[in-house]
């Protein structure tokens, strides 16, 4: 794809472009002054919101604020909690001997973890899941979703939780140690968040962290089942696990690509791009660009040099680099190790379905069987 067409053009529903080579994706993501996020990372022009739709300097405020509850150190400290939660989840279906691992496992894992982290009720979060799915579904009208101002079951639930925390706070009660408490009480540069902003952050974290991590866990399990020799390597040497996670992120980027919008006319590969044009950075394509990775770029290999593998674009790069990356990596490590340890002789019993949403890449079903002790 990169060789014939490094810069692709589409005219539906309006003119937009795609960069696919590693060098071009790197260049666009680096030049955030020209290639901005103010009209959102999706194809639809979308303004307002937090983090991914904000440019510097406001963007720095958002990141530093979230970091108060979401720093890499705090996320990594959740390892024991996450291991316990995943263990309990597997207890629920381990005796079945067969099933669809997407429904049983890869969908619930991130929802359980994010509920714990944000301070939300797991059942409520699971019920809201179709909403999170809708955001990335190709048939969802742009701008319809994730609007904290709108009256939806999600915003009503968030509002109720926020009111409860503010009430406890004003009575001087001890608040639970979670992201919601931080958002409700945090102060940065003398500023506090209002309810709509808190809802915006909560909604965004919940959406950013669920489908993406589901895809990572499912993709890695699927590739290992497809490549038994690599699975053997891993099971005999779990120190390869971080490499396996990185290689999965590279080879099967859960997010195919995200958009930037230019603030002035510019040129890419000799094509003049008028101001305010959407260009998508194809992370998945950049991740298998042979000019960067070498001729074996298209092979899944958990023993690839980790110092090279880590340069993938699955979490974006530069100023908007994924804030959930340490958590997603941790969840994937714990989940994949637990699944192969607890489900002996795990094997595919059918072909997985590919997920329908264009922005995502991964499996939508994973029919498997395993031996019961």
């Amino acid at each position, binding site marked *: 794809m990169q060789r014939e067409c490094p810069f692709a053009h589409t005219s539906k529903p309006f003119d937009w472009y795609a960069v696919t080579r590693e060098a071009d994706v790197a260049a666009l993501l*680096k030049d955030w002054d020209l290639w901005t996020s103010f009209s959102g990372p999706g194809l639809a022009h979308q303004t307002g919101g937090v983090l991914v739709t904000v440019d510097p300097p406001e963007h720095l405020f958002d990141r530093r604020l979230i970091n108060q509850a979401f720093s*890499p150190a705090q996320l990594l400290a959740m390892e024991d909690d996450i291991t316990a939660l995943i263990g309990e989840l597997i207890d629920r279906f381990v005796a079945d001997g067969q099933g669809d691992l997407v429904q049983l496992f890869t969908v619930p894992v991130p929802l359980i973890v994010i509920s714990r982290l944000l301070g939300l009720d797991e059942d409520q979060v699971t019920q809201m899941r179709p909403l999170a799915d809708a955001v990335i579904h190709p048939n969802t009208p742009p701008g319809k979703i994730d609007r904290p101002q709108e009256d939806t079951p999600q915003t009503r639930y968030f509002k109720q939780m926020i009111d409860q925390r503010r009430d406890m706070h004003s009575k001087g009660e001890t608040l639970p140690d979670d992201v919601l408490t931080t958002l409700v009480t945090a102060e940065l540069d003398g500023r506090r968040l209002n309810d709509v902003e808190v809802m915006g952050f909560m909604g965004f974290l919940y959406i950013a962290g669920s489908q993406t991590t589901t895809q990572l866990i499912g993709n890695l399990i699927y590739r290992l089942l497809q490549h038994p020799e690599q699975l053997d390597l891993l099971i005999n040497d779990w120190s390869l696990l971080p490499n396996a996670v990185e290689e999965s992120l590279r080879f099967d980027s859960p997010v195919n690509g995200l958009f930037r919008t230019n603030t002035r006319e510019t040129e890419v590969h000799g094509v003049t791009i008028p101001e305010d044009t959407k260009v998508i950075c194809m992370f998945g394509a950049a991740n298998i660009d042979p000019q960067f990775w070498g001729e074996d770029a298209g092979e899944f290999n958990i023993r690839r040099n980790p110092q090279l593998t880590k340069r993938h674009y699955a979490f974006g790069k530069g100023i908007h680099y994924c804030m959930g990356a340490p958590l997603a990596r941790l969840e994937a490590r714990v989940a994949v190790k637990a699944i192969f340890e607890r489900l002996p002789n795990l094997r595919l019993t059918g072909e997985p379905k590919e997920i329908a949403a264009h922005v995502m890449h991964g499996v939508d079903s994973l029919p498997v069987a395993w031996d019961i002790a």
Partner: protein
Amino acid sequence: MAKLVIDLHKCLNSGQCAYLQPELFALNDDGEPRVVDSAPTGDLIAKANDAITMCPAQAISLED
């Protein structure tokens, strides 16, 4: 005096350090970060700590 260092082996090339604190960090053309002021003092200590807590790879430290 404390010395600001990046463990390039751990670094995941996010580019965050150079974005957060351009007085202390810069990126090479290939996206590899480097320390531009390895002996921060005064205000710059707090700035170094900002990058330390936000580095997604926990690759930055101030060493005695």
